[in-house]
């Protein structure tokens, strides 16, 4: 990867970030970030559950509030975004509105944006590929794509997406010509970015519903292309 720049002793102190080391209850690093045994309740897990119980007992929150929020989260799935993308592919007026007034269009389409967040839709073309990352945390258009996947929150993606986006896309199976401009968008909490990928060739005459089956979550983050029409069953 690119070595980055010389600044503030970041590269010359000998200090190295530990990377994606995750440890299980015995302190052993394990391979999969966030993987936990159901039977073992870690310290932070038990403290989270303790806080929930205490907040309910004190009447700070209602007994069903968290369950209701879990229900709301369960409605946030990548097919929400795929529906919008497929509609934009077949309906030029809808696409223009989605790009011009994204938040209003998302609400009109029946989805509930996150509290305070604005939504921006970035259109990929034959000459421009957008790819979204949040280097500081995990900002993500959850209303349209659900909670971010583990890899989006991983230290390796947050580190590498800004310095070698094409190498990252290549890992996801997308190889771009050098004359395609790659725009990495480092996402801000108040602005959530949804990538509008290019409609695959060979899908002329397809219905919105059928097109939506090609629109993957990763293509709406911008790290890969939609599925090819050959890859789905008729």
């Amino acid at each position, binding site marked *: 990867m690119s070595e980055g720049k010389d600044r503030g002793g970041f590269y010359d102190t000998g200090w190295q970030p530990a990377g994606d080391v995750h440890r299980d209850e015995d302190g052993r690093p394990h391979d999969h970030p966030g993987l936990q045994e159901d039977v073992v309740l870690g310290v932070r897990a038990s403290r989270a559950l303790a806080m929930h119980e205490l907040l309910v007992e004190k009447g700070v929150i209602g007994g069903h509030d968290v369950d209701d929020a879990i229900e709301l989260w369960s409605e946030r799935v990548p097919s929400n975004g795929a529906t919008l993308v497929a509609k934009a592919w077949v309906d030029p007026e809808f696409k223009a509105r989605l790009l011009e007034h994204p938040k209003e269009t998302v609400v009109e389409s029946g989805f509930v944006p996150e509290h305070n967040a604005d939504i921006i839709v970035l259109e990929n073309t034959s000459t421009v590929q957008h790819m979204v990352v949040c280097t500081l945390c995990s900002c993500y258009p959850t209303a349209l794509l659900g909670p971010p996947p583990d890899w989006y929150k991983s230290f390796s993606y947050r580190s590498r997406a*800004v310095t070698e986006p094409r190498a990252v896309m290549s890992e996801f199976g997308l190889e771009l010509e050098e004359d395609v401009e790659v725009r*990495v968008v480092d996402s801000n909490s*108040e602005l959530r970015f949804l990538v509008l990928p290019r409609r695959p060739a060979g899908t002329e005459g397809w219905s919105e519903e059928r097109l939506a089956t090609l629109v993957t979550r990763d293509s709406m983050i911008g790290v890969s292309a939609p599925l090819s029409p050959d890859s789905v069953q008729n």
Partner: protein
Amino acid sequence: MPELLFSPGDRVLVRDETPPHHHRTPWYVKARRGVVLEFIGMYLDSETRAHGGSGLPELPMYRVEFDQTELWPEYAESPGDKLWVDLYEHWLQRA
């Protein structure tokens, strides 16, 4: 609506500061030059809101485009590649 300090096309330099409070300016754009793409709106000030404040008054935010080669001198993937980040006005200086 306050008077905006920057317009699309303006060359800007991101302040090279690391205040101890929460802030959303990634380290790698600090002291780097970019171009204002657009004013994107007035937003609550996350730097005070993160510390119990109201976040008021709202502050102007801009989308700023950087050449990847400006951010990472050894960037080798393609010379035309860009990076966008949204920054509060007070992080920007005229370049």
